[in-house]
């Protein structure tokens, strides 16, 4: 068996995955009693997928509204109206603090 070329070796599947979502953040947002985000998780199949959908919708809204620094923004994901609080980093990356309906 021929050795794997360095370039191919560098592209192992884990490098192609999306950034890992902090399980504590998922727990914080989705496990709070009374927050009523269960149906959103059901719609997306997992907390991680629901969180990614929230992040994408937030990113889009922030770009559209040209927001920088701390933000509180209303988004709609799969028919769920949500408020997201977070901060926009200098490089444009968004960080999510909390989410509530």
């Amino acid at each position: 068996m021929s050795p794997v070329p360095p370039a191919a070796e560098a592209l192992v599947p884990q490098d192609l995955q999306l950034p890992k979502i902090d399980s504590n953040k998922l727990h914080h947002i989705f496990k709070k009693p009374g927050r009523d985000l269960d149906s959103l998780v059901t719609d997306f199949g997992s907390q991680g997928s629901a969180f990614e959908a929230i992040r994408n919708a937030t990113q889009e809204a922030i770009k559209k509204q040209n927001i920088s620094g701390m933000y509180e923004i209303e988004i709609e994901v799969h028919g769920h109206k949500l408020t997201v609080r977070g901060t926009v980093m200098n490089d444009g990356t968004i960080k999510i603090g909390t989410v509530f309906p």
Partner: protein
Amino acid sequence: MTTQAALENAVLEKLLNGKSEPFQILFRQYQASTVTKRQMTGAGFFTYFSVPSDVPPLPRAPSFCFGDVHAELTGLKLGAGFLLTVNKGYIYDLEAYSYEEPWPSNFELVRLYYDNDESRNEDKVIKSFHARRPIE
């Protein structure tokens, strides 16, 4: 080191520091309240309160959340935010959250500040109250 209780007290005193009736009533509730539960999530915490029933609720017993106070804490490069939930006219819980950083086990509170740094428009804050479904 700042304890979690000290952080909670400092945040609530800043959040509820206002001349308007809602802040006055909620501050009196806070003074009479006891902590019933603290839940650490790794990305922040939730602290739950109980207020004696002889302390008046807000008129018409609304349910909402708000939070225009932020913190600089050692151990959190991006700081922290807070959200107070009021349920049926009574303070219910205080949420503290980081911006996708692990909540530090030991920290020092550097400072608390409002959305617009030190100034605060109470009417604007009251208008920012997010109505919530009552928690049973």
